[in-house]
């Protein structure tokens, strides 16, 4: 049974007069990195208007956190940026520690710095893999996954999970690192610069790669700041803002590293920044391994939900909601501290901020997550409008977004 052709095929054709048509890209599309939908208004292949639509993964994060204790909300942070869950966990713990005034033992600080940088490596490798695949370079994808696998195996050895770790605790970490973990990591860090070289041989000076990235998606420093970009997206435009240097947390003020900058502000500049960050992460891990001090891995003040170490901490039935430290805190002050605090950390995607309001109860009165991906997707129209469909894909890749974090 056939229908008249002119009626069934109703794709509007863009002619020379600039007739426009719309294309809804996503939420099921191979290159939108999750469930991002981008409504495009196109003239031929040129993007006239681009409006990203988010929220497909919204889980009411802030609302859930208001109804849980601080320790219970930790697992929610795994589900933010699931590519680098460890960095989110650490960011959350740092924020709650600051709110409750808990000090962390030095060894735990070093371990958290190590796992943070490991997750930065894992996240940047996934970014490079998918970004290169989006632009069509297929082999980089698998090279990156080879190294990412080592990272995930190490995480598995550390805490038993490969994606949603919940390994750091408020006041420290859950378990101590093992000898074999350190050995494998040491070997990985020593070899990693060679592997970075392998990725670079494939794309770094590749003429097609340069054509697709140099001068595309350019943002000046002022524009990037105004859009609220953070992380490598901001540093690629030449703004020296790295929270690890500006407001050091954990052991970042005890190790030596550089913040890579670039002034071009295009896709290639951001690519170079992230590649340099991989080198710097390896350097930080190496220093942390060398300096790793002995000692406890969790503060005495930590709220419970920590695996009790045999014989060291007494857990009585019925009183296990809070650790001894917090019971002391409650006895001294009568309640939790009252006030509000904004603490941000440098996660692989940018600045992850937690804003807490404490009203003295054991639960946050209000928790707000400032997620970098959310802001970065908001900046997509500024990058993509006026360019072509192929550049949109490159631009989504260069912003390095994760929708779990964007939608919360």
């Amino acid at each position: 049974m056939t229908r008249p052709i002119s009626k069934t095929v109703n794709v509007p054709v863009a002619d020379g007069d600039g007739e426009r048509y719309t294309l809804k890209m996503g939420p099921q599309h191979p290159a939108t990195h999750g469930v991002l939908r981008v409504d495009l208004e196109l003239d031929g292949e040129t993007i006239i208007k681009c409006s990203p639509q988010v929220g497909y993964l919204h889980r009411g994060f802030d609302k859930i956190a208001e109804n849980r204790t601080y320790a219970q909300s930790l697992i929610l942070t795994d589900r933010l940026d699931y590519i680098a869950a460890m960095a989110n966990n650490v960011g959350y713990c740092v924020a709650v520690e600051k709110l409750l005034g808990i000090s962390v033992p030095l060894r735990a600080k070093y371990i958290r710095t190590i796992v943070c940088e490991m997750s930065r490596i894992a996240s940047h490798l996934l970014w490079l893999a998918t970004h290169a695949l989006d632009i069509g370079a297929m082999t980089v994808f698998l090279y990156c996954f080879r190294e990412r696998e080592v990272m995930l195996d190490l995480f598995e050895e550390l805490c038993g999970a490969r994606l949603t770790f919940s390994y750091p605790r408020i006041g420290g970490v859950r378990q101590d690192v093992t000898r074999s973990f350190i050995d494998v990591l040491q070997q990985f860090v020593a070899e990693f610069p060679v592997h970075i070289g392998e990725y670079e041989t494939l794309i770094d000076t590749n003429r097609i790669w340069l054509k697709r990235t140099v001068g595309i998606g350019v943002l000046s420093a002022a524009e990037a700041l105004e859009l609220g970009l953070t992380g490598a997206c901001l540093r690629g435009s030449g703004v020296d803002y790295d929270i690890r240097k500006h407001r050091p947390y954990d052991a970042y003020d005890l190790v030596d590293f550089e913040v890579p900058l670039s002034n071009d502000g295009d896709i290639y500049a951001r690519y170079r920044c992230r590649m340099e960050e991989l080198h710097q992460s390896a350097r930080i891990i190496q220093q942390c391994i060398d300096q790793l001090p002995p000692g406890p891995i969790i503060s005495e003040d930590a709220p419970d939900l920590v695996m009790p170490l045999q014989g060291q901490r007494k857990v009585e039935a019925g009183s296990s909601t809070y650790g001894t430290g917090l019971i002391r805190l409650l006895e001294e002050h009568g309640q939790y501290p009252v006030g509000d605090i904004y603490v941000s950390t440098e996660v692989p995607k940018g600045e992850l901020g937690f804003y807490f309001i404490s009203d003295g109860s054991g639960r946050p009165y209000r928790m707000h997550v400032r997620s970098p991906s959310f802001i970065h997707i908001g900046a997509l129209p500024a990058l993509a409008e006026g360019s072509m469909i192929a550049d949109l894909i490159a631009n989504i890749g260069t912003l390095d977004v994760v929708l779990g974090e964007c939608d919360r």
Partner: protein
Amino acid sequence: MHVLILLIEILILFAIIMLHVAYATYFERKIIGHMQVRMGPMRVGWHGLLQPIADGIKSFFKEDIVPEQADVVTFRAAPIICLTAMLTSLAVLPFAKGWVLADINIGLLFIFAMSSLASYGVILAGWASNSKYTFLGGLRSMAQVISYEVAMGLSLVGVMMLSGTLNLTKIVEAQGGSFAGMYVFPQIIAFFVFFISMLAETNRVPFDLPEAETELVSGYCTEYSGMRYAIFFMAEYIGMMVMSSIGTICFLGGWNGPFEVAVFPPFWFVVKVYLFMFVFIWIRATLPRYRYDQLMSIGWKVLIPLALGNIVLTGFIKAFTG
């Protein structure tokens, strides 16, 4: 009787080519796998040798989905147009001396005609699916094929001038049996242009824009499933083989080799074709993808002037050397 023999020959050729297509996919997956630090297919048969057959059976038994708003007749016909055009061009290819179904005098032109016809299938598929992604894929394919057909045609004019014929068998014979006689040496510019156009003509990386997965989902064949999708796939691989064969015949001296293999005369031809196929795959594993406008500017601003210059150059040389 003559017709019957011809039919049997056609059937044999068809069977052999289909087998080659199946194993070309295996070849590609294995090579790309090893280039990408993985194994490729390993499960079906020894080292995955039966994988292409399993894939074929699977796609035969998959549901054939036709989108509700699609133009059904065109939608169903498009992959068949593609495959038929590609298969037809096989008829004029000389695999060895005398190993050719139709030894016609306009072999080269015939192949061009057929490969243009195959792009109709792609365009119709893109249009009939009534989806914007397929439509964009079809448009891209149309623009790409038109531009690169010109460059490719012009690049082969040099070969025609040197050999003085369009008959593929005679082009091979004109190159003689020696290594130095291959047209790749005097026609090195043409070979360069031909090679790049060949990649574009077969929609291979770095010119795979009509089916750019990360941009257009799957380009013109987004809405296809099951056997019809597999037919597009086959057409693409036969296209690769035809283009490799043209390269072999026009530039690498066809079936001639350092020594004769009496039991299997097309031996060197097959070796050379697979060399081309290997380069196709090698490039796919290495390079990113061009953008649409960059592809166009390479075609029109670099390749076509180069090919035209090559014609002038060849003409001069031929005029002065006699």
